[in-house]
């Protein structure tokens, strides 16, 4: 290689980096490709958030199109989307909540304080609206892990066969609903 080319090399490398940085600027870093789309809902057996003796399995959910909304009272964006989600429920959309406990570790933190969590949940839902048919409690975050959840809020659209059709990161608002969810919903409901 001659000297002139060697001297140009750093500039070329830098230009390449800049191209990627420019693209990266307009890509949403929170947009994840989880690879769960098109797959079956993972199997689970988890307790209900509000009732002590009730448990839920993936088979309980099959037969209907539903949204699985990952949320928590600790998450301000979740609070913000509750209002719109409640409107959707009133329009007949079935929404199931997956309550995501942020940092509980049974080895370190001792028994979980269910009473105060239920208290917080009812206060928040009474204030902002309750869009949920029911809530599944994912205390150890196992289902969230299987679903590739990276935070809250996140929402999955699942069809009546239990196939995941959509994974949305971030809140649901009228704009997101029209752009991402409504077209798929229309196809599903003849």
């Amino acid at each position, binding site marked *: 290689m001659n000297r002139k080319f060697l*001297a140009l090399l*750093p500039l070329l490398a830098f230009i390449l*980096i800049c191209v990627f940085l420019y693209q990266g*600027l307009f890509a949403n870093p929170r947009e994840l490709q*989880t690879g769960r789309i098109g797959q079956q809902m993972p199997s689970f057996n988890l307790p209900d958030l509000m009732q002590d003796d009730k448990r839920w399995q993936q088979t309980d959910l099959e037969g209907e199109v539903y949204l699985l909304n990952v949320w928590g009272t600790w998450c301000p964006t979740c609070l913000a989307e509750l209002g719109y989600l409640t409107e959707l429920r009133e329009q007949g959309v079935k929404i199931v909540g997956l309550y995501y406990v942020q940092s509980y570790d049974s080895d*370190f933190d001792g028994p979980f304080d269910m009473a105060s969590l239920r208290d917080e949940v009812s206060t928040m839902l009474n204030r902002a609206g309750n869009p949920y048919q029911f809530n599944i409690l994912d205390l150890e975050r196992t289902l969230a892990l299987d679903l590739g959840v990276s935070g809250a809020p996140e929402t999955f659209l699942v069809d009546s066969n239990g196939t995941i059709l959509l994974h949305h990161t971030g809140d649901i608002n009228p704009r997101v609903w029209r752009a991402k969810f409504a077209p798929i919903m229309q196809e599903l409901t003849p």
Partner: protein
Amino acid sequence: MIPEIGYFSLTLAMVLSVLLCIFPLWGAHTGNLRLMRAAPSLAVGQFVFVLISFAALIYASLTDDFTVAYVAYHSSSTLPWYYKITSTWGGHEGAILLWLVMQAGWTAVVAMRSQSLPWILRARVLGVLGFLGVGFMLYTLLMSSPFELLLPYYPVEGRDLNPLLQDPGMIIHPPLLYMGYVGLSVSFSFAIAALLTGKLDNTWAKWSRPWTMTAWGFLTLGITIGSWWAYAELGWGGWWFWDPVENASLMPWLVATALLHSLSVTEKRGVFKSWTVLLAIAAFSLSLLGTFIVRSGIIVSVHAFATDPDRGLFILAFLAIVVGGGLTLYALRVSQVKSEGRYKLVSREVALWLNNIFLVVATLIVLLGTLLPMVHKEMGLGSISIGEPFFNKMFAILLVPFAILMGIGPLLRWKQNKWAFLQNKLLLCALASIAVTSAWLFLGYDVVAPLTLLATTLAVWIVFTTVLDIVDKTRVHGSLLNGLKRLSVSYWAMVLGHVGIAFVIAGVTLTSAYSVERDVSMKPLDVVSLNQYDYRFEGVKDIRGPNYSGHAGVVTVLKEGDKVARLYAEKRQYDIGMQFMTEAAIDAGFTRDLYLALGEQLSNGGWSLRIYHKPHVRWMWLGGILISLAGFMILGDKRYRSNKKREQKSQPEVA
């Protein structure tokens, strides 16, 4: 009124920096001495106005002026006064203003301490610095002014400074880091000025060296304190996370380290010139790239600053102009540069060249590890994440040859060496390091992993070879004391830097290998033992701070029945925002840290506690401080003190 003065003053500073960019560069181009002579006063003037602007923001914060949006979002009236001051760089807009203060400050110091430079070079250096100032000020004024007002409806109370940032480490960490980042812009300006002038001689290297060393010293100290802050404040005993933002500060450091070694070769031997210039450009480019990564939200990180594509676009455009321009100039000019010196395979030149190769490879590893997840995703290959295991493995592999070389390098002479002459001494050093390390580890610990032994041996090896070198160099002067006096300041800086690295290697190795942690549930007067220390839980008491309340777990630490320390592991809840914070209690020691974090109260009335025993963890930061001292020591070297009386008289050459 005061915030308006701040904004107005910044506008004036911007006008001055535009002039600072145009006058000297045009003057140098046309050979107009009067234009060039304007540069130093413009530089100082720019600094004064930036300083006024910064003072205005501090004043607004101290007086709880919540009409200023920045103050309302990052401070509160209950915050102690010192955190009110530090809150001025706790958020994006204020941090950039602090950056400006540093930029203008360095420019002013360069202007005042560069009398011995030929006017044509001095003017170009200041002109380039002025150009950088214009970029950053334009950004502040247009995109991220900290003086935006919340009128007419302003809040009666501020949102408070993030509790994580309410820590002494946070008071000094960002200013030091910025001093380092911005200081590298001086090396950059020297490189660009030298390329513009077309004279890459050893005089250039000699001028550039003290600035680079000082900036590097600040950068080292900034990174060290950042690591200490993470350890003390984040509550789980970690000290480095390979987070993109940390990587962003490590990359310029690695390149700057390569640069100052390369500069020494260029100064003393007149070789590696084009390489040294490239490193000077790269070091500051990586500082800018780091800023871009941190501020644009292009990569999700725990440091998560506000994300705003417009801001990112501005910084990227600025980056493209500065770095792209610099590299274009490099490509145009550097092929004309010729190296003069000659050297053999076994020589200090080759040792330093290898040092540079290792450091640059390390930088590329960090750069790839940081950017690859993003590139991978954009090429449609899916999301991946690159974390600790990758970086740890790569750095462990690089460390072995690097540390061996670090021991040998200083013993070599310029130009050539007889290998046979060194062979025996080095062998002796190697055997001694293995023997001493083995004795140390096998006597002190039950289990010694091969890798732990290897890494610790390397640290000891660096110390031994350094001592050998000192003995060698002093022997020729008769008595030891006489010999020690004759060693130069730069030499001592090297010794300090290398010993510092040895401390970092030993600290990281030993604390990674021998840290022990235990999660326990304790009731009052329960005792738990961990590594010969007994921890007696005395109970929990309520605490009340200036802007938080909470409780502290009180633990008495005993060793063989004697009291070692009483620790207060706190759980704080801040009044505004109601955030919970774990404030770990640390009993620091030269050979071990005892580290305690309080968990929740359990249903049986006991408390959960996490106890860490961390041997030699402090060596890491001690090493960091030693290394940064090496950077500051060079200011004491007579060769680099600018001679104020020797004002440049000769007319500048016409370019």
